[in-house]
């Protein structure tokens, strides 16, 4: 045996040898001619097909003509009786996926094979024909397929069943007719036939819940099934459980079946069952225990896949039932050193979720060893898990912060470092005690940070947070070092940070001035400019003056002008005597400001987000409204509604409206989108008819000047209303605009436009618009402390209602208040219910409401309404709303 091995080494020279070396598509296509020989050579033909398949497999593609030519040549090969060649013919036909007019050529040959005596022909012809066929042909071969489903050869039956599963997507009505045959196949003794039949039968009946439930019931009693079929059955059973969860009470159906599968001899079944149990909605600890035990056994398996599967499932359980997983912690800890890093990472993150306060330190020690030898992507997962652990156990911030700062100093890529820095920033934000040490860690980090982005972000953060600490001076050294050692971008950021310290901490001002003056001669103009600016604004002539408000806005305020607008204005500015005036820049946001909110992005965390947390929708609206001078004297915005659609989906113009409520005004913000590419709309406004809204008077309307295709624009209409009164009404809206044709090729609009109108749906202002949903954590305390000075109690009959739940939600919606302590949920069939509501009414008056409902035999609902608020008038208003609503 030794000799051949040596020989093998000699062969290494032509390691790259391949039968397909230097293969060329053109040459192979020439070779296809052999298919037309009168005397077919099966072996040679097979080789040519293999070459064609090789080309396709390597990503080569055939043009339409080439494919057609190959296909026609291949059809000639049906003449050959050679089994092996026929097999290759089937394979290449599937790969070529011929068009429907070409399919006809092979249909008769394939149909002949479908009725052949040879099982292999039958099975493969079915698979090929079903792959390439269309609906019309299917009716012709349906009879044979039904026969094949119950064929005694399992390969043939499986081929027909699997083809049925694929055809169900395109021709459901035909496949559904086969359910008798499929039903018969479910009883097959052949393991895989049963699996395929089960898959098809369930898909045929998937819209019939009862039928699926019956199917599962009948099958869960039997045994002797292939593991795959058993897995499928478990999935069906858990689906039935999921769907029946709302309608049934008491014992869960099929739980016993799932539990019994935990003792199945096939691992895939055990795992499938265990996972199904852990994913049951509202699973109890008693139900969970056997599944966790089964998974625990997998944790110490020699097979990586089992360990991975188990730890992944347990990781999920740990999110909802951390206590149930703690039994596995010892096994899990040994997995930290698992060869497979995915398993180790999952184990660690699970442990971090289940760990209690006392185990944190031990865990951190283990993780520290682990971190050095895993890839960045795993490290990021761990860092995120540690961040949430720290938020869970704030008292442990010291050891967790230590850990983060240690790994921050080690090697790592940008994403990893960013994850750590983000985590530290979040911890600083949420755990006040961690602030000082966290800031110092960040300072240490920027001393030796290779990422400009992170350095500038940290400097910015330091500038905002550092001055507020007890001893701001200790950060100055770190910041000033940057001015010496870093690139221009970081230097500029450092200068800004220094200025912020100077502005906020008067005691440091003289020192800061000294430092800043050293930067005046920096080699970079941005750094020089910033320095000069700050020295001037902070009064750098040596005197320590209190920083004025304007300077603070300059340093700390957010730029409330869209950068795009600023850029355009600066480009248009021509050098002249007149200085550039930033106030002349439009604050109007060109694109819909809320569109980005809807975008499925991660919620802003870390450095990118302002410290006060993400801005609420109201903030965004407030900024938008305050950018319009006409609305400035309306006072403070009380509440903005959610957008209400005024058009159907997919109409020419899409319009929704947001109701902004002020003390004495209401502003409607119409968000309009023009969905016709050939049109440009100008002077777009909404004409509002107030005939059904007597309390309102229109004060102004602000049109959109131009509304090009697919660029949202906003038009506003403002109304005056009596102060303190919950004026309600119905507004009918008409969109009015000038429409101009747009040349699609040049996208230039014509000069002349036509005035046009477009009817929108009506809009209502209701009492709930004057109420903000603001919850209280402890209703009883709030209720007691509010006192009964302005309590107003009354009883109402709500008339016959469907059930109690419906009555409760109707009143909640009418008042627009926040239900507290989960009292909006009514137990089924209960005869009485108490609901607690909280909110803030127009004028910032806190309101608490206690609702007691009762329902009698004839479904008449009675309600006792108790209101407490800080203002008697408001308490009365709530009662008015209910009595009129």
């Amino acid at each position, binding site marked *: 045996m030794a000799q051949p091995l040596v020989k093998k080494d000699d062969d290494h020279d032509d390691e790259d040898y391949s039968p397909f070396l230097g293969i060329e598509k053109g040459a192979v296509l020439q070779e296809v001619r052999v298919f037309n020989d009168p005397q077919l050579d099966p072996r040679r033909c097979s080789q040519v097909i293999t070459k064609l398949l090789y080309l396709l497999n390597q990503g080569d593609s055939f043009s339409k003509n080439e494919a057609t030519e190959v296909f026609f040549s291949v059809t000639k090969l049906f003449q050959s009786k050679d089994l092996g060649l026929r097999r290759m013919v089937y394979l290449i036909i599937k790969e070529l996926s011929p068009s429907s007019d070409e399919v006809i050529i092979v249909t008769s040959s394939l149909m002949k094979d479908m009725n052949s005596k040879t099982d*292999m022909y039958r099975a493969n012809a079915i698979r090929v024909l079903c792959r390439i066929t269309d609906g019309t042909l299917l009716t012709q071969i349906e009879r044979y397929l039904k026969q094949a489903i119950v064929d005694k050869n399992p390969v043939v039956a499986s081929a027909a069943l699997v083809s049925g599963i694929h055809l169900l997507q395109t021709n459901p009505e035909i496949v559904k007719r086969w359910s008798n045959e499929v039903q018969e196949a479910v009883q097959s003794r052949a393991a895989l036939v049963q699996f395929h039949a089960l898959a098809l039968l369930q898909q045929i009946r998937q819209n019939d819940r009862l039928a699926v439930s019956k199917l599962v019931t009948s099958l869960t009693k039997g045994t002797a099934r292939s593991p795959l079929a058993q897995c*499928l059955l478990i999935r069906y059973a858990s689906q039935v459980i999921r769907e029946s969860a709302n309608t049934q009470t008491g014992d869960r159906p099929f739980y016993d079946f799932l539990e019994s599968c935990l003792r199945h001899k096939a691992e*895939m079944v055990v795992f*499938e069952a265990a996972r199904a149990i852990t994913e049951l909605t509202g699973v109890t600890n008693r139900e969970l225990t056997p599944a966790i035990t089964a998974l625990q056994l997998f944790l110490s398996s020699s097979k990586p896949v089992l360990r991975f599967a188990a730890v992944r499932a347990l990781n999920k359980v740990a999110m909802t039932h951390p206590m149930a997983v703690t039994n596995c912690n010892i096994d899990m800890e040994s997995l930290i050193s698992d060869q*497979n890093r995915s398993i180790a990472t999952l184990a660690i993150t699970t442990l971090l979720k289940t760990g209690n306060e006392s185990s944190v330190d031990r865990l951190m020690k283990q993780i520290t060893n682990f971190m050095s030898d895993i890839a960045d992507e795993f490290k990021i997962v761990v860092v995120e898990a540690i961040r949430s652990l720290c938020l869970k156990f704030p008292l442990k911030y010291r050891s967790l912060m230590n850990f983060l700062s240690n790994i921050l100093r080690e090697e790592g890529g940008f994403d990893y470092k960013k994850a750590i820095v983000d985590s530290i920033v979040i911890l600083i934000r949420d755990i006040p005690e961690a602030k000082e040490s966290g800031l110092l860690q960040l300072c240490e980090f920027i001393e030796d940070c290779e990422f400009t982005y992170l350095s500038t972000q940290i400097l910015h953060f330091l500038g905002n947070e550092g001055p507020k600490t007890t001893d701001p001076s200790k950060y100055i050294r770190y910041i000033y070092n940057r001015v010496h050692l870093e690139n221009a971008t970081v230097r500029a950021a450092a200068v800004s940070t220094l200025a912020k310290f100077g502005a906020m901490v008067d005691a440091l001002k003289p020192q800061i001035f000294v430092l800043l003056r050293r930067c005046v001669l920096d080699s970079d103009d941005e750094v020089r400019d910033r320095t000069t600016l700050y020295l001037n604004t902070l009064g750098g002539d040596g005197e320590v003056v209190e920083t004025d408000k304007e300077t603070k806005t300059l340093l700390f305020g957010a730029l409330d002008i869209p950068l795009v607008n600023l850029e355009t204005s600066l480009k248009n500015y021509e050098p002249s005597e007149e200085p550039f005036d930033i106030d002349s820049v439009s604050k109007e946001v060109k694109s819909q400001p809320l569109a980005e909110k809807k975008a499925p992005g991660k919620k802003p965390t870390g450095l990118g987000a302002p410290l006060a947390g993400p801005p609420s929708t109201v903030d965004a609206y407030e900024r938008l409204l305050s950018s319009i001078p006409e609305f400035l004297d309306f006072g403070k915005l009380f509440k903005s509604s959610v957008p209400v659609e005024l058009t159907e989906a997919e109409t020419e113009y899409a319009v929704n409206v947001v109701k902004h409520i002020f003390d004495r005004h209401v502003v409607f913000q119409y968000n309009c989108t023009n969905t016709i590419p050939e049109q440009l709309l100008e002077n777009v406004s909404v004409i509002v008819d107030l005939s059904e809204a007597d309390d309102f008077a229109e004060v102004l309307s602000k049109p959109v000047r131009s509304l090009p295709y697919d660029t949202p624009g906003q038009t506003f209409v403002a109304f005056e209303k009596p102060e303190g009164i919950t004026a309600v009404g119905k507004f009918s809206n008409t969109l009015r605009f000038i429409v101009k044709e747009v040349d699609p090729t040049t996208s230039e609009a014509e000069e002349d436009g036509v005035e046009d109108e477009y009817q929108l749906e009506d809009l209502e202002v209701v009492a709930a618009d004057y109420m903000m949903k603001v919850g209280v954590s402890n209703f009883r305390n709030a209720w007691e402390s509010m006192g009964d000075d302005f309590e107003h109690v009354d009883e109402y009959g709500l008339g016959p209602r469907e059930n109690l739940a419906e009555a409760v939600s109707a009143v909640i919606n009418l008042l627009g208040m926040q239900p507290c302590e989960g009292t909006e949920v009514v137990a089924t069939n209960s005869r009485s219910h108490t609901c607690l509501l909280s909110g803030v009414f127009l004028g910032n008056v806190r309101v608490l409401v206690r609702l007691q409902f009762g329902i009698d035999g004839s479904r008449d609902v009675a309600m006792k309404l108790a209101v407490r608020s800080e203002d008697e008038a408001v308490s009365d208003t709530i009662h008015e709303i209910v009595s009129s609503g």
Partner: protein
Amino acid sequence: MELCPCVKNILLLDFEGKRVAAKYFCDDWPTNGAKEAFEKAVFNKTQKTNARSEVEVTMLENNIVVYKFVQDLHFFITGGEEENEIILATVLQGFVDAVGLLLRGNVEKREALEYLDLILLCIDEIVDGGIILETDANIIAGKVASHSTVADGLSEQTFSQALATAREHLARSLLK
């Protein structure tokens, strides 16, 4: 909701990550470029791991990838995030063992290319349009070999015999 276990792709790559044979059953990777990028990512992620004695597993782009290496060949099977990884591992083991039988124990790139038709037929017998057809290596190899021109005679032997002759075959081919 799709409940039937589903295979997204079957890949056979060489020791440099180059494609020997690949079959995709879903539209997650619509172009050849996307497919090659995925193969590269899978290869790079698994390259340094030891997947020779047992089937290994990892996550990539919200997919589960199970893999095993034999000589200079890397076998992969991908399934969705929610798929039962043990099922995928069973399919992979079936694939690896069937290839072993078909190549008569001589599982290496050169041999795989030499008998590429067998490899392609083998994949065709394991999964049809994402649905698992068969996981038993003996049955898979039997179905492929019974009607192959290249492996004539293999079907008449039992597979233990086949493996026994494999060694002989190896020696012979090297002495040529």
